[in-house]
């Protein structure tokens, strides 16, 4: 019992340390180039964590989350334009409103898309993303169409410019993490995991699968929409192909897979590793299309070499190591157990 408590204390300290370091970054590194990377990394920590609530816990792989991201950005931009909000800190107050609007979109999309399962669901989410992109393009009276939509330009300059956006991104990422943590240990989360493992059996034992899936989808989408809203204000100008970019949608998925699908910290780890790498690739090869080739190569390496993600693989190694020490080397039962693929895949929380 005491040992468990000591473990919890260690966990709490580690968590606190991570949060303090995250909050101190703009104070420690003030140059805009670094804080710019920090803003995008915090953004992807939030995106990957939010995506994981649907994709990781429920097992429904959505490749269309870029639609919610772009929709959130458009929602905030249009709110600011129609309500005549001046730039400054005030636009941040409307980010939750953009999140609620995105949740409404998620209800519509989820209602249709969640009638399907597995591969069909993946495809439907891709189609829905292009549908939203097309709407942003075609409803030009509202969205400005291909000409794009401008946000009020933030009044800050120099080293401070990135700071408010960084904290906004970190705040949403923390909310996403808190939601993810809470869902994991709730009855709701248990239902989601049951759906992932076998939806028909989950239904049979009384999990309200449809309502649960839709709820997870909405929570995930609303968080992504809020992040998209902050992003829109940060970049100050969006157009359909830029705001609803399939690459953003696939990047958050890749980060979750790299870190560990269905784990609490996997998405965070994936984002912290991949986003700076992605930005430096873009910086080095930005002008040429070779950037995409390198990105694809990293992508393929991750999936072929680490199909289950870093955290599950490492946890697996640790258990195997621990058991071997406990049972003695070469014990066939222990090794066989540790090799069992589904025993630990993504279920445990580090």
């Amino acid at each position, binding site marked *: 019992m005491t040992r468990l408590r000591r473990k919890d204390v260690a966990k709490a300290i580690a968590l606190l340390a991570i949060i303090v370091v995250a909050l101190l970054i703009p104070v420690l590194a003030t140059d805009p180039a670094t804080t710019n990377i920090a803003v995008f990394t915090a953004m992807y920590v939030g995106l990957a964590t939010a995506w994981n609530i649907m994709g990781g816990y429920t097992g429904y792989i959505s*490749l269309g989350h870029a639609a919610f991201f772009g929709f959130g950005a458009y929602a905030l931009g249009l709110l600011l334009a129609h309500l005549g909000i001046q730039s400054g800190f005030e636009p941040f107050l409307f980010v939750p409103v953009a999140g609620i609007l995105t949740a409404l979109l998620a209800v519509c999309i989820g209602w249709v898309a969640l*009638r399907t*399962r597995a591969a069909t669901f993946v495809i439907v989410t891709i189609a829905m993303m292009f549908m939203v992109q097309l709407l942003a393009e075609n409803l030009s009276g509202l969205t400005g169409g291909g000409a794009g939509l401008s946000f009020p330009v933030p009044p800050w300059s120099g080293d401070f410019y990135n700071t408010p956006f960084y904290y906004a991104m970190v705040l949403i990422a923390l909310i996403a993490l808190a939601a993810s943590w809470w869902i994991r240990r709730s009855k709701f989360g248990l239902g989601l995991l049951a759906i992932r493992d076998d939806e028909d059996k989950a239904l049979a034992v009384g999990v309200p699968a449809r309502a649960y899936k839709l709820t997870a989808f909405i929570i995930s989408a609303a968080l992504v929409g809020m992040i998209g809203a902050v992003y829109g204000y940060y970049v100050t100008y969006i157009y359909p192909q830029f705001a609803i970019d399939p690459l953003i949608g696939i990047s958050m998925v890749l980060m979750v897979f790299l870190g560990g699908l269905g784990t609490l910290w996997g998405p965070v780890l994936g984002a912290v590793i991949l986003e700076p790498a992605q930005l430096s690739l873009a910086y080095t090869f930005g002008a040429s299309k*070779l950037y995409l080739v390198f990105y*694809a190569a990293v992508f393929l390496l991750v*999936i072929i070499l680490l199909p289950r993600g870093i955290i599950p693989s490492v946890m697996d190694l640790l258990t195997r190591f621990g058991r071997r020490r406990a049972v003695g080397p070469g014990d066939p039962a222990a090794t066989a157990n540790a090799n069992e693929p*589904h025993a630990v895949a993504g279920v445990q929380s580090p």
Partner: protein
Amino acid sequence: MTLVLEAVIFGILTGGVYALMASGLTLIFGVMRIINVGHGALVILGAYLSFALLKSAHIDPFLSLVATMPAMFLLGVVLQVVFVRPLKDNREALSVLVTYALALGIEGLLGFIFTNNLVQLNAWYETASFAVFDFHIAYVYVFGFGLCLAILAAMFVILYRTDFGAAIRATMLNRTAAQLIGVNVDRVSALAFGIGVSTAAAGGVVFGLTNAFNPGSHYDLISRLLTIIVLGGLGSLRGAVIGAILMLIVEDVAAVVISPVWASFAFFVILVVVLVVRPQGLYGIRVRERI
């Protein structure tokens, strides 16, 4: 009314090439249970291969298929063996990511070599046309439609009249059972992937003759192809062909009746309607398995 009729004829003619591309995609899905998100990029790659042969050696795009289809077949087999076969756990989800990465890699490579400028394959039949009653139909659409029909027919003959086709269909029905009765499932999968990719090359030529394209065109293409195979029912060749022609007719009619900018949207609206009424698609069976 004549405009609508013309749109219907045009929809059928352009539907042919989508039927061919979607058949390759649905064949790959049927045999391996994976969604090849890179299919659109492979179509564009096929178009660029013929484009390169046309520009460097003045080889007619249709003729160039003699070289590009076998080359793309080999490429498909290699891609399957190197990237798809190693996937074990969670195959459906991981294969989506792998093929997505392949699409990005192909897009990047093509962009690096050919730049992002729009190009189009050209030949004498691209602009020449003939009149049927009051309609002017460019030869290229008829030739393209004919080619697609021929390849589709060949695919159906292979699938339904040969032992290899029987092995493919057995694998599509039940992978484990096929393995038990002695089908070499790995070999069938690699060859089916190759066939799917080589039909993408043929689709690419017809697509490239009738549309301007650049390396980024694959996004639009894959969203349409995936919509078509979901509409037809995943893994159903018949569904893919009928779905493609239906979709293109609707799109072309919508372009005339409503407005060209909303034509692609009509495409997706049909998808939504079909999913609400019949989630398994036109010819699909209710999917019980999960990712």
